[in-house]
């Protein structure tokens, strides 16, 4: 089964984060907080169905949610940034570096 590598990057502050792939809850984390020095909050590896599917993120405390189409065969790495209650997905062939 393909694996989707998801990095939660900016904008998290002691948040609960729930990730869905398609209709299924794929991962859930509590107390997610960004380390500003490396712009990184958490890394997750999520088994994904072969082919395209929809990745959805929910951050209940910030009343924020968003979704995007992903295909682990094409872009197995996703970096998620949250700024001003806007979520941006960066779908990548390689992991976005941290520093």
């Amino acid at each position, binding site marked *: 089964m393909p694996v989707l590598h998801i990095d939660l990057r900016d904008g998290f502050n002691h948040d609960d984060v729930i990730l869905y792939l398609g209709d299924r809850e794929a991962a859930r984390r509590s107390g997610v907080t960004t380390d500003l*020095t490396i712009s*990184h909050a958490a890394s997750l590896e999520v088994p994904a169905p072969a082919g395209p599917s929809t990745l959805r993120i929910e951050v209940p405390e910030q009343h924020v949610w968003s979704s995007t189409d992903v295909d682990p065969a094409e872009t197995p790495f996703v970096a998620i940034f949250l700024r001003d209650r806007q979520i941006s997905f960066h779908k990548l062939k390689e992991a976005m570096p941290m520093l």
Partner: protein
Amino acid sequence: MNRADPTTAETNFLSATDRELSVEEVAEIQALDATMAGTESSAPPAAESSETAITEIEPKPHKLPTPFPPLPRRPVSGRYRSGGMGFQLELRVDVDGRRPMRKVSGDVYQVSGSTVSYFGSFVVDAPVLTVLPNLVIINGIGRYTWSAGAPKIRISIPRTFVFAPPAPATVQFFTLTNQPGALHVCQYVSAYFRTVQYELDKVADLTTPVFDQYNTGSLPSGGPARNLSVISGYAESGVEFQATSRNDVIPNTEEGADALWNNSELHDSMERHFSQWRDIPQWAVWEVACQEHVLGTGLYGIMFDQQGKQRQGCAVFHAGIGGTTSDKLRLQLYTYVHELGHCFNLLHSWQKSLATPPQADRPAALSWMNYPWLYPGGPSAFWNGFAFQFDEPEIIHIRHAFRNDIIMGGSNFAVGSALDNSQAFDENLEDNSGLKVELSVEKSGKSFLFGEPAYVKIKLTGREGRTVHPYLHPNFGLVQLGICKPNGDVMVYRPLMDHCVMGQAVTLGPENPSLEDVIYCGYGKDGFYFDRTGFYQLRAIYNAPDGSRVMSNILHVRVRHPVSVADEDVADLFFGQDQGTLLYLQGSDSEFLKHGNECFDIVLEKHASHPLATYVRLIKGLNIGRVFKTIDTKERKIYVRKPQSEESVKLLSGVADVAESVGLDAITIDTVNQSIADAHLRSGNKAAAEATQKRIKTHAKKTLAGAKVA
């Protein structure tokens, strides 16, 4: 190789890295800026000077050919420092030379006796330049970290030829009404605005070479080609990195069995291998080249030092950046400089709004602090436009930020301050006083009940033969006590009454190895200082007779949450102006404090066995055991209430019985016992007085034995 857009601000000639600007050119730019803005200048009015008759904003007349080219003059920019006692000024003038930011800033140091401490900083955001043939005059109004009485500033710097030594800068402060203030003559120190000790260590298992230098012309870039190292990269920003002579090779064992580094291991190695490491603010930084972090090969570097005094160390990881190809060397230069940028308290370009105070985010900045991967247009666009430099607001921060906002070990990364970062209570930079001041509490767990009167012990020790004054209580004005509250607010304890004292000297030696006192600091001119639950920090400054300002340790105490209805009820009965005043005065008969005494009576009636009732017995017992005089101004009479010995003994005996379990300090217990003995004597009970005296001696022996064991 230069692919940058020549119309953008990034490439205007103020940003050029390969040319120095003369002060005349900068003055012309200033005049042009003022014209473009439709105003003469946004700067504050200059202090009056007859020399300003020759203005700097005249357009250049057409020059006739001259037989000899004019001799070049030295730039006036750089770092200057005044000397002597009192206040010393470190001045940074940034008005010409490489990438002039048109700012002036400074740090003020207080020299007092054998101690040097940081006092504060200022910056002049919009200085007005006047350039004369032989002199540069800079006028402006500063922003200060303290409330400055004379905020205007005028700096005069003679212009010397390049073959002559640099001239000193004369700094004159003025009030807003142009009355002259302090004058400093600052000698030229360096062309650099800051100097930092830089130590680069590596771990033994590194599989690729530690970075040395990269030629920025090897691949497309946005700036001139040049060989850049970490040191020369920072030199271009105006910061001198002095490499320390020690470069350790750290054994693999320090990264643990997993051969991966975590932040805790990095911090531990920093303390072990960084030859300059001290947990204080200082201009010194450690960088370590490692193979890999636990977060994986995608982590190129980290400013890991986020505990204690922060920003003193960073690490780079060669698993992601190592190699000898041009792109790898470019990545190493970028990563090494980027991580050190965090040590200077710089955030990522797109995160500037998260700083305190916030700035505008600059996601399109071509800066060391941006991510190529987040740059609009992607990594290629970033590298093609990047001139290997910080952007202008970052340069301004690096050169002119207030000292504690930038010095390694100063303010926490991106956040505000606490007591150990509060300027008034900063660690001394030098302390040759030979004295030591200690604060302590004798409460178990160093914690107080909510509402409990806060008593703190202060102890002075020092070299044998050292002359000191014995006034350790803030009442006498020679000791200041700082209190950092749980929300970070820092207050100086202000006693309700100031006591004037005659100068008295004590020589420390075998007979007087130390001096001690107990300070009640729960209530003062600002009300209650421990009025919320949480963690507090306390630090004292002892002002010695020779002018030295000796810092105590930082005492950490906690005020606990009330856990029962009785705790809350008693706390309510303790919090009140009258009660605070009674605690400060150790009791009073005053009619004006009647309400406070009534509240305390309720404590004794309703909560007689509560620990805080002990303090009520203490102050009531001490008060009633002494004479109290009341003046009736109408009848012009003085009424004297005589000591009520029996009642005093009863109350104070109740204190003595539970003193140690409540956590009263040794000095207060002695005071209680002495008062009991005096009361017995007054009432003619000599035997009881002697028994109490015996108890005092036994207690003293016990305390001494405890001290020896400690």
